[in-house]
Structures are given as C-alpha cells and as structure tokens.
C-alpha cells in the first residue's frame, strides 16, 4: 500500500480518530496546530513518535526533527522514505 495512505490509516487507528477516513486527510494540509482539521496536539505528537518507530522502524530523535517531519502527510512520508533509504 502506498506510504501516504499507510500513514493516514495509522494516524486514524492509533490516535483513535472517529468518523475520519483516509480520503478526509489531505496530503499537504497541517496535521497539528490551530489550523489543522484533525485537532491533533502535543500528546498525539509524542504518540506519533512511538508509532513511527514501531510501524516503520524510524526514529525521530528530537523535538525539532519532529516539528519539521510532522507538518503534513507529505513531510511525514518524505521523512520516513529518507530514513528507510539510508538504513
């Protein structure tokens, strides 16, 4: 399955989003913050760090890396691909 779709499904299931389908999540819209349609917050961000490690074997490392990578589905997918390419 395409990486972006996998990420969306993971977010929906693991962060317990209700009444949201992968099609509802745009590739480039903000995931976090006041402008985000999903309403994810700092606690979700922390959980996401663990999930990336568990499901994709990818370590985030620090707060700044997380902020950049978590901006959107696109940035998340790019981050995961890059990390896996290097591995």
């Amino acid at each position, binding site marked *: 399955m395409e990486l972006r779709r996998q990420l969306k499904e993971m977010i929906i299931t693991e962060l317990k989003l209700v009444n949201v389908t992968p099609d509802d999540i745009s590739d480039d819209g903000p995931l976090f913050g006041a402008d985000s349609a999903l309403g994810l*917050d*700092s*606690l979700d961000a*922390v959980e996401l*760090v*663990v999930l990336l*490690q568990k499901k994709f074997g990818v*370590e985030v490392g620090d*707060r700044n890396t997380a902020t950049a990578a978590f901006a959107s589905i696109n940035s998340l997918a790019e981050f995961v691909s890059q990390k896996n390419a290097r591995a």
Partner: protein
Amino acid sequence: MNPQDPVVTGLGCLAAGGVGLDAVWAAMMSGRVTCGPPGRFAAAPVRKSPVFEVPAGSWRPSRLVAETGSDRTLCVEFLLVALEEALDQAVLRPGGLGGRRIGVCLGTTVGCTLNDEEFYRAFKKGERPDLAAIHRFLDHNPAVYLARALDLRGPVSTINNACASGTDAVGQAAEWIAEGLCDVVIAGGVDELSRIPYLGFSSLLNTSEGPCRPFDAGRDGLNLGEGAGVLIIESRASAERRGVRLLVGIGGYGCSADAHHVTAPHPQGAGLERAVRQALAGRDPAGISFVNAHGTATIPNDAIEGTTLARVFGAGVRVVGTKSYTGHALGAAGALEAVFTVQGLLAGTIPATAGFQDADPACVVVPTREATGVPRTYAISTSLAFGGGNSAILFEALP
C-alpha cells in the same frame, strides 16, 4: 491565633541524598547531587535518564511496625523510616497512637497502582500465577497500612494527584485540623522508583539525559526520584497541651485546576496563580521569604511557573528548586518539598538550586545560585500536577 490553627511539630524524610532530614539537608546545603542510572531495575527507554535512587543499604527497616509474614513494599518501608523520625521529633510514642483520633493523609502514585510486571507477564501467558503480588498490593496502600498497623481512628486518605499528591496531602491534613476532625494528623507522601513511570515519562519525551537543571536556559527535562516525606500536623492547642515545640504554622493552602490540557500546563499559569493566591490568604506577596518551586526542569513547566511566580511576587522573589537534589519523586515530591520549606524557615537559609547556571529570560525568575539567607516570615511550596492540577501550601514562622 486560634487554638484550632494547624502547626507542624515533627518532620521526617528519606531521599537519594540521605536518610533523615539532617543528612538530606546537609547534602543539599553542600550542593551534593547524587543521581545515576537505575540500579534496582533494568530498563531500555528511548532516552535513558538518570534517577535519584535511595541507595541500597543506606536505610534499615524501621521497627515502628513489627514485620509480618508478607514482604513490605519499598513505599511502606520508606514511609516508616520517615514516620519514625517525625514521630520522634513530635514526641509521640508509636505505641501510644492506637485507639486515638489520629488522622493519616498521604500522597502516592506508584504506591497505589497494581504495577507488578512479573505477575502480569505470568497472567498473560496463562500461567495462573499465585496471588502474592495481589495481596502485597492490597496490604500496602500507604494510608490504609498505617491506619491498620497503628490502629488510628481518625480520617484516612491516600491522595493520588500525580505530582501534587504530597502537597495536597499536607493541605488536606491542615484542613482536617482546622475543622476539628482530629487533633493530630500524620501527613506526607511516598513513592518508589519503578519501571512503569520510568518508561512512561521517557515516552512523553519529558526526561533529561543528564542531571536536571531547574530554570536553566539549557534545561531539557526531568529526572525521576523516590523517597518519603512526613510531617506531623496538629492543632496549636494539642501541641501546647503536650508541651512540644511548635515548628511552624500552616497558614494557607490553595488548590486549583487548569482545565487546559491533559498533559500541558495552562500557558499563563492561571490555575497556579489562583492556588498561590489562595495559599497567601490575604498576606502581602512582598513579604514572602521564598518559594520552593515545583521546578521539574522541563521547558514548559519552569517557564510557566517562573513567569507566574514573578507576576505574583515580583521578578526578584527568592526561588529554590530542590528537585535537582531529590529528582521528581512523584507522590513524595510535594511532601519532601514541604519538609524543605519548613526547614528553610527554621534554619533561615535555603540551598543553591543545583544544576542551574544560566538564567532563562522566558522563566523571568532566577533561582538561588548559592546557599542564601532568608527572613523568617512565610514561605510557599508549589506543585503543578500532571493532568493540570496546581497546589500551593504556605508555612509561617512562629514567634
């Protein structure tokens, strides 16, 4: 001055820095920090963090309560050691407490949670383990344990308010006294280091890989700790009747929720300010001797707490962060810090805030860089709890 006013007549504590208040205080006044990798358990979190563990062999089981068949938990062991010291100072004979309306009010987090990993692993595998771990859990709720072991007949309360448990326990005890529910309360808090909170806090990306640095510009998280703090609280009338020394008075207690976010504090410290003002109970903020801050050394906590304290007391308020000596001892934290606040007023000095070097403008306040003389007026200890609770307790020097 009211005969029903709550006063402190005994102090006891146990922490990484030592057994007994004299030892712990001396270590703090000399700036000694004793933390390291966990020795009692193995753990492999994403970010390893030093802990403030009570050294094995540094304490002996208290004979306050005769040991029975079942193994006492570490929480109960720590509690008994600190309690023995506090009762001794308050001139209360352990054997003479039974049958009397003496209350017990203690804070804890690990001490009231069924976290026995070994039992649960066996249970999950379908091995049908025996119930020793369950019985141990059922027999060692801190306040219930003391009530039964010492036959106490007053109110019995174990408070779990995460990081503010100990402060709330002392505040609650003071209210029982003021209300006339009982004449004496054993108050305080206890917690033991355990894999579960160690791994849990690490997963929240809240822990530092080095010794914590409260209010420092380069701070990056907390260290966990363990221990016990006990205060004997009684009515002024009871203390005077018994002819014992009144150490300090408890002049106010505030407790308020942020209702902002389940793990992040209110950005303007609104709940903390309310709690602090409640504890001040009308006293002039300018007259405060010092504040023993919550000071976990996480980036958000110290900034929010610092700016709030500056707003209430002025930017130059004397602040000390003692978690750099004890770690964040969770349920014991507020109780240890209450003990240290009382001691600061009695001694007229507070220690340097270990780990602090460079001021952070975002925190506004600058904690103590060295041992500092303080006036014997009134002092506050603050706690900001996981979940958004804020608690503050005010102790007042007595003439």
